[in-house]
Each structure stands twice: as structure tokens, then as C-alpha cells.
């Protein structure tokens, strides 16, 4: 019982600390904005026109599952 109370109190303290810190924005949009701000001399990067490993992996999976001949009519 005492252990549960202590754990609950500690978790509240931890979550309070975490709430005060801004959560990093790990969205793809933000990643693109960061790359844009850091890139110099490369127009594609500056305009946010780049393909990540995630993008290629997504296309790889979808293309692998598709039968082009079966859909040809």
C-alpha cells in the first residue's frame, strides 16, 4: 500500500517535470523546416524538396505489394 502511494506520488512529480518541458516536435513537417533552415547552397533542400529513408521505404512497401501486369487492361 505504502509502496503504491509512493510510486503514484513519484509518477506525478515526474509527469509534472515532463509537462514543464516543451515536447519536441518530431513531425515530418517540422523535420523539413529544420533541414530548410540548415541547408545552404542546395535549392532542393532549401525548398524542402527532399526524400527521406522513410519516404522511400513507404514507396518500396506499396510498390512491392502491387501487381502492375494484373492491373493492365
Amino acid at each position: 500500500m505504502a509502496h503504491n502511494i509512493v510510486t503514484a506520488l513519484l509518477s506525478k512529480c515526474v509527469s509534472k517535470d515532463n509537462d514543464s518541458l516543451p515536447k519536441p516536435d518530431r513531425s515530418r513537417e517540422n523535420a523539413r523546416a529544420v533541414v530548410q533552415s540548415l541547408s545552404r547552397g542546395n535549392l532542393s533542400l532549401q525548398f524542402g524538396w527532399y526524400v527521406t529513408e522513410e519516404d522511400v521505404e513507404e514507396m518500396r512497401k506499396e510498390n512491392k505489394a502491387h501487381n502492375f501486369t494484373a492491373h493492365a487492361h
Partner: protein
Amino acid sequence: MTFDHNKIAELKQYYDAAEATLKEGECAQNAISTPAINELRYAGQHLLRYLTGSTEPSLEPDDDDGDDEWENAAKHCKRAMFDAAEAPVQFYMKQIRVFQEDYRKEVVTDVVAGYVKMMVRVDAINQEVSAIAKGSRQKFAEKVRNHVQELADINSQLRVAREELNKKITLRKKQERLVYLGLFLTVVGIIAKFL
């Protein structure tokens, strides 16, 4: 510190080929491949380690395979070429998929000559590229690079065909509307007769 000028020249060829592929892919997709850029970063690191005779452990986790710095730099250049070519290859195949989805109800073979043959070829490329294991990408870089132009040509023919197919769809919808109007008027006529 001495180094082999011939090896540097050879490495420059690999680097230039990777950079050219990266540039072609950038124009094809209107987007640059960051995996390829990363590989060239690693290639640069290994080149400098080769030139300075550095013996510090590599920061790149995949490099613990006993290759020397020059070999690792060459490997990363070839991987860069693969990554730079694979991105537009996957992109073009995605565009072709989108085309097939858009015109799934239309007879594309009436408009695009050799359409089925084209798709058989796309399937063959798709299977070949999918079968390449992550660890052996540098060996197939040149092969994948050769597929980019072929897929670009197919994609460009399908893009041109869109206009013709769209005209067919518009004409078919007009004809369908006339048929429905005719049926409606017939039904109205029959009802009016009995009233």
C-alpha cells in the same frame, strides 16, 4: 603520409557517378535523396581517414567488416549511387500505380500501344529491385541506375495518355447521361399514358 593517387582517382570516379545519379534523381523527382547524401558524408569521412592515416574507430556502425578506409569510402559511394537511383525508381513506380488506380475502369490498351508489355517490364524491375538485400546494395547500383530512364520513359508515355483517356471518360459520361435521360423520359411517357 603517402597515398595511392590511382586509388584517389578511382574513388573520384565513384563519387562523381554517385553525385551525377543524385543530380539526375533530383531533377526526375524534383526532390533530393537524403539517404544518398548521408552515404556521401560517410564516404567523405573515410576518405579523410584514409588520407590522414587515422586509426580511430569508425563512427559508422556498418563499417566493422575489416575493409580498409579506401574500400569503405568506395563502398559508401556505391551505396550513395544505389540510394540516389532507387528513390526515383520507386517514385516512378508509384506514379504508374497512381495511373492504374485513376484509370482502373478504362480500357487503357485502346489508347496506349504496348501497355501490357510495359507493365510486364515494370513488374520485372519491381521484383528485381525488391529482391536486392540491404547489405548488397552497392553491388547493384549501376543496374538500378539503368532502370531510372526506362521507368521515366514509361511514365512519360502514360502522362501523355492521360489527356486522351480523360476525353474518353468525358464522352462516356455524356453518353451515360443521355441514356439515363432517355430512360427517364420513357418512364415519364409510360406513366403519362396511363394517367
